[in-house]
């Protein structure tokens, strides 16, 4: 082969390799940051986004102050899903799951608590979708389908409920009725676009700014979205990097204050709401269809709050949840009336439904030790053996 031709071919190979390698690098960077950039752009205030980015970088030191409620919390979950990435164990459900903690699981098990206060089942599914999109299907979903929710009056929206329907509070889900994102090979035009590349660069610049300020914790002024020391008491609710919540005055899982009374007189119109049961079934079916293992559980109510009427209602609701689980072939563990059995003492109740970390540990212990028989082996693989010790 003539020298000149060999040189030309070498140049062609370098040329093509350089073009393809650079475009592949840009595509990879854009693909990696696209969902995160979109979520960070779509959800929440700048303060919240920056606070969560800083929290993700200081998981052992920091906590984020925030007023509870679905508006703030849904934005928090939406952003957090992008920051936590792959999750092995996902907790979903109402606020009484808030003390389910990373500390219950083995080292290396990626845990995230995606509870939402005072929420619809549709919002729980929104968290599930966010987690799946960001990091894939979790191995296990612990779903707090508390019996009290099933006897709550009112409508429960489905995903086909129009976003402008007044039933939604805190807004319809982020991707309500939206088409699923196209697979990567159909989205090359967008992923290899100048605009997406600019967004990636912007995201990187934002992250660099967050990194520069991450080392310093904020002063706890009682305002929301402050990144404060998790090992110092606060007067406000705080969220940890694993998604769990710390109550005002609580330190390292030990409660010191009490919340207000939440369960009104159990006499009256409260009865099983078939629409809520149907929605629970619909959303759990969709989750199970992704291949994840779902365990339904209902946490204990403070035994001091139980009246004969409420006990009967909870028993009926627990039976309905069990029937849902049976139809779907998943485990169901109703602990509503079994607080003492799992070791929850009076001081473990922040109020009638919200539990300390120790009491939640008892729930997990109960699940491992036979209350979720189909999932027992998976739970043993994931749960820290120390949790099984009383």
């Amino acid at each position, binding site marked *: 082969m003539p020298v*000149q*031709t060999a040189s*030309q*071919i070498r*140049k*062609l190979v*370098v*040329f*093509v390799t*350089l*073009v393809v390698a*650079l*475009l592949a690098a*840009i595509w990879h960077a854009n693909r990696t940051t696209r969902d995160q950039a979109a979520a960070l752009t779509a959800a929440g205030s700048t303060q919240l986004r920056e606070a969560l980015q800083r929290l993700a970088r200081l998981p052992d030191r920091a906590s984020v102050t925030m007023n509870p409620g679905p508006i703030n919390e849904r934005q928090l979950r939406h952003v957090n899903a992008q920051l936590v990435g792959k999750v092995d164990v996902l907790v979903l459900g109402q606020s009484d799951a808030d003390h389910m903690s990373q500390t219950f699981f083995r080292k290396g098990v990626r845990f995230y608590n995606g509870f939402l206060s005072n929420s619809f089942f549709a919002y729980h599914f929104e968290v599930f979708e966010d987690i799946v999109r960001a990091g894939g299907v979790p191995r296990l979903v612990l779903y707090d389908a508390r019996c009290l929710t099933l006897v709550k009056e009112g409508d429960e929206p489905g995903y086909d409920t129009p976003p402008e329907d007044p039933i939604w509070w805190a807004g319809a889900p982020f991707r309500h009725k939206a088409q699923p994102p196209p697979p990567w090979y159909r989205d*090359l*035009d*967008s992923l*290899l*676009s*100048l*605009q997406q*590349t600019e967004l990636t660069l912007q995201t990187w610049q934002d992250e660099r700014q967050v990194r520069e300020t991450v080392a310093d914790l904020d002063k706890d002024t009682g305002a929301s979205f402050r990144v404060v020391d998790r090992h110092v008491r606060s007067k406000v609710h705080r969220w940890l990097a694993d998604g769990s919540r710390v109550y005002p005055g609580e330190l390292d899982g030990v409660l010191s204050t009490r919340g207000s009374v939440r369960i009104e007189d159990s006499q009256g119109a409260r009865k099983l709401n078939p629409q809520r049961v149907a929605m629970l079934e619909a959303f759990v079916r969709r989750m199970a269809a992704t291949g994840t293992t779902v365990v339904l559980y209902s946490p204990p109510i403070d035994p001091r709050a139980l009246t004969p009427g409420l006990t009967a209602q909870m028993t009926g609701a627990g039976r309905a949840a069990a029937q849902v689980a049976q139809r779907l072939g998943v485990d169901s563990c109703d602990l509503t009336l079994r607080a003492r059995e799992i070791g929850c003492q009076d001081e473990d109740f922040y109020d009638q439904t919200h539990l300390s970390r120790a009491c939640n540990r008892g729930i997990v212990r109960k699940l491992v030790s036979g209350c979720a028989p189909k999932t027992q082996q998976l739970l043993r693989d994931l749960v820290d053996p120390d949790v099984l010790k009383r």
Partner: protein
Amino acid sequence: MPFNSLQFIFLFLPVVLVLWRLFRRRQHALAFMIGASYLFYALAAGWYALLMVVSTSVDFAVGLLLDAEQRPGRRKLILCLSLVFNLGLLSFFKYYGFVVDSVNTLAGYPLLQAVAGVALPAGISFYTFQSMGYSIDVYRRDLKPSKSFIEFASFVSLFPQLIAGPIVRPKLLLPQLAAQGPVDNARVTSGAMLFAAGLCKKVLVADRLAWYADPILNAPGAYGSVDLWLAMVAFALQIYFDFSGYTDMARGLARLLGLEFSINFDSPYHARNPSDFWKRWHVSLSSWLRDYLYIPLGGNRKGRGRTGLNLFITMFLGGLWHGAGVNFIVWGSFHGLLLLVYHRIEKPWSTLPRGVQHAVMLFVLLVSWIPFRMHTMHDLGAFAVHATLAPHLPTAPPQLWGYVLLGAGLSALPRNSNDIRWGALGWPTTLALALLVVVAVLHLNLSSKFIYFAF
């Protein structure tokens, strides 16, 4: 799937090139290329690909019949078959809607009904001319007819030149296809670089110019003279970089396949007179019109008056070839008049200083682009009024000035893409071109169709 799309650059082209090189036998390779080209065409034109099958078959048969027939009258009749078929096809698809609209406008009521769903098949103006040129060459005995349908079909359908040319002469391409041997690696390198350069010209210059100039040219009544003239300069540069970028890509693709196409542009804005311009602008069309229309009309052999008329007719039809619209008729007629006048003043013109000739020619060309770009008489009128009677401070974005300067600078360079040895670029140029290609690819989702795809 235009050349400036990710699907073409990263899927269609690599797959076709790899498979093309795998075939050992020429006939197999050509048959594969026909399949690939028809796929390429069907993605752009759908079922209209069948028209190309018919057109190819007719001209192939005409070539064989002309070869077999010796009687002049019969030969003329056979040639007429090709002309009537090709021009009929072109006229129907290109001018049918225009005729219906014009008749209805003149009548004042819908006298004629348009046939629903008749659209202009992509590239029909190019492949009918190419195919028709073959029949004429065989009729004139300038060319031996192709005996191989596969060679002829690949000549007509070859995807690099299918949609917007260059209109490659059968005398140039058929022998290359017949002798298609192993691909020359040096030519492949040259082709890849030329394709890359064409992509950059289209995406990074032409499309950027259009991005900033189109809002002004789409609403000429809303802008003043400075903006309008600046935008028209931008369009003059845009159409050059758009079409010559496309041509470079087509020629680069041909080289990747081991073929060589004719040039189509040769620094047209260096022209110092209208005749010079048409030797530099869309050369494959202008030379086709010269050889198959102007010369048969009599060329310059029948006196000055007839020569002028022939020039005018040729340019008028050249304008009409671009599309059925009054603006193209005006544009073609304008160039016909320019050539006519130039032939009258050729001697005194040549005594003018070169700079003056060049400056006047540039201005005349700029004026000629106005009807080409303004698609309606209303816009043309608005441009004429506002560009002359509405002086004002410029409001165009600074980027437009920047891209106009860039385009003007590039088009003024003494060498163009025909002069560069693309296979022997230095390392710095090769690396710079690679980076420009990456930037161009990032702009592809902003890239528009090639202007000449509409013709």
